[in-house]
């Protein structure tokens, strides 16, 4: 017998009391009128009712598990209670459920919920969980600074973390992505596997998907296969994403774009002087082709991305940083370094870019261009750039650097004789640099690399170190 999925869905919703009175009445009318629908209805309702009717025998189902379940069924509540007691029973259900998941109060010892099954080039930050390969993991936090690590949950779900990522394991069906990027593969028994980010809740409905959470309050989900459900959205709605679809949520849950108190140039040991972009009239920012939400000069991150894919794709991003050297005697500089703090952008997935990404650092040779304004700079007015890329008449390539997939592990230092020479040539007390990524991506959802800007609430602003 042929019934549409939507008819089946209506019936199932009726069984769970999820239909409004009007919808339920409409279903009843259709069941009366349509013999085929009536047959399906009776089959479904009979199954549901038989399960209800023979509920006493169901508890035996839990005894056939090979593995001792940490959750014991509570004593069967007495049936045929007066109606007034039903709501009390429902409340009791909730209370019992809560106590099962309450660490320390639980009826069982803290369960092992996952195993660390793969760790490539991993470096971990101080973590309250073991990080050796094949470690059994309970609940707690994992902070991956470098590399790629894979966890296999007892529910069957597999989660791969790409550094830098901080993840909190809550249960075998639930974890919280505090910051960073992960991809998840969830087989059928683990459907419903849930990942929280600061902005949203991603519930698997049978799928492979990726989630990122940026340090600047944005989250992105991309479904590679199957389907996921997004909850926790501001409008209270639940969104469903199917294969190939993505969703980006910028909730700004993290402090956004505060102009920092202007920093000092710092004298360091060994004759080095460190100048952040927050010093004097320094500045930093980025622009994106298409200028969605521009200008981005006061954003907590500077984001760079490059794509060789279709030219219509608007996800090319370049950054500009300017240091105020007016207090510094530049002509005697011997060595120079630029230090950048990589931060998760919350945009895109490492899995969709090549193993290693090459970046270029350009010095802005046309000094008039040092006068760019953070609150006005757009894609078209980026110092020394045109739509196609850096303009050789106004910029000079000073250095290249590489970031492996899975992060560079901490601050990134760009150095070289060309850089020092460029500083010595300065005449107006400002030096500006353009940062571009030269490596493309295999998919428009490839990772957008990001570094902390001076507006970042916790990480360090771009730094020019001179000696």
């Amino acid at each position, binding site marked *: 017998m042929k019934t549409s999925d939507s008819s089946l*869905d209506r019936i*199932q919703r*009726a069984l*769970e*009391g*999820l239909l409004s009175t009007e919808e*339920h009445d409409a279903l*009843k*009318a259709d*069941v*009366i009128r349509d013999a085929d629908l*009536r047959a399906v*209805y*009776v089959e*479904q*309702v*009979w*199954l*549901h*009712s*038989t*399960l*209800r*009717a023979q*509920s*006493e*025998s*169901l*508890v035996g*189902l*839990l005894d*056939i*598990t090979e593995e001792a379940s940490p*959750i014991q*069924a509570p004593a*069967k*509540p007495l*049936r*045929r209670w007066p*109606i007034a007691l039903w709501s009390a*029973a*429902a409340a009791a*259900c909730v209370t019992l*459920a*809560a106590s*099962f*998941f309450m660490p320390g109060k639980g009826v069982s010892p803290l369960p092992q919920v996952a195993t660390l099954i793969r760790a490539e080039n991993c470096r971990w930050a101080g973590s309250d969980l073991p990080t050796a390969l094949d470690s059994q993991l309970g609940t707690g936090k994992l902070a991956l600074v470098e590399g790629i690590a894979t966890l296999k949950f007892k529910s069957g779900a597999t989660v791969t973390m790409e550094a830098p990522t901080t993840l909190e394991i809550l*249960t075998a*069906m*639930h974890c919280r992505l505090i910051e960073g990027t992960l991809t998840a593969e969830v087989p059928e*028994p*683990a*459907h*419903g596997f*849930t990942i929280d980010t600061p902005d949203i*809740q991603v*519930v698997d*409905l049978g799928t492979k998907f990726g989630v990122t959470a940026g340090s600047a309050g944005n989250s992105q989900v991309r479904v590679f296969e199957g389907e996921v*459900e997004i909850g926790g959205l501001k409008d209270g709605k*639940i969104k469903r994403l199917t294969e190939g679809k993505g969703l980006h949520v910028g909730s700004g849950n993290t402090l956004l774009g505060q102009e920092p108190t202007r920093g000092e140039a710092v004298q360091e040991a060994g004759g080095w002087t460190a100048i952040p972009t927050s010093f004097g009239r320094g500045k930093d920012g980025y622009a994106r082709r298409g200028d969605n939400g521009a200008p981005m000069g006061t954003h907590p991150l500077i984001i760079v991305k490059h794509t060789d894919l279709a030219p219509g794709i608007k996800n090319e991003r370049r950054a500009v940083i300017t240091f105020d050297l007016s207090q510094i005697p530049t002509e005697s500089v011997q060595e120079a370094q630029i230090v950048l703090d990589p931060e998760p952008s919350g945009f895109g997935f490492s899995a969709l870019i090549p193993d290693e990404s090459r970046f270029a650092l350009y010095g802005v040779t046309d000094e008039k261009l040092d006068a760019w304004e953070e609150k006005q700079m757009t894609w078209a007015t980026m110092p020394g750039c045109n739509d196609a890329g850096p303009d050789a008449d106004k910029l000079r390539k000073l250095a290249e650097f590489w970031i492996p997939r899975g992060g560079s592990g901490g601050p990134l230092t760009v150095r070289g004789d060309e850089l020092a020479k460029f500083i010595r040539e300065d005449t107006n007390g400002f030096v500006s640099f353009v940062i571009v990524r030269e490596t493309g991506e295999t998919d428009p959802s490839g990772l957008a690399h990001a570094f902390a800007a001076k507006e970042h609430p916790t990480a360090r602003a771009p730094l020019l170190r001179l000696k």
Partner: protein
Amino acid sequence: MAALPPDPADQTETYLRLLTQHDRWLAAYVYSLVASAADADDILQEVKVTLWKQFAKFEPDSNFRAWARKIATHQILNYRRSEKKRSVSSSLDETFIEAVAAELDQRADALDLKAEALNLCLRKLPEAHRKIVVWRYYEDCGIEEIAVKSERTVEAVYRLLSRIRQVLSECVNRQIAPAP
């Protein structure tokens, strides 16, 4: 010749034997026709009382189920009528219950086979799904409570339950299909 009045002790025993034999079927029948679990429990209780009161009228060799079905359907319709009436839909409700009851009667044998196959199919479910079934049907938790217990959203629990019932339904149909 007039029938002898039945021996009360015998009658009690017969009633209990028949009721035990058909208890689950009767419950499933009433539950099928009444959406609310609490109402269904009350009605089922009433049906059993009525069956007992009228048991004297039951002819020992006739079909207990057909008799019980008639009483149960009648009881359900009475209950509906005595409820605070939603004037718009009470006639809809009656027609609906009668239509579904007729369908249940017509398919009674097939459904009995399915109820038997169901136990086998339940045991084939993955552990996580069996747990959901136990929560939903043994502990009488609604999907909201299950959402809390399993740390899923209500919608995800609904989807999962639908899928589990669908899997069970397909399994049951395979079980009772004649061998090829």
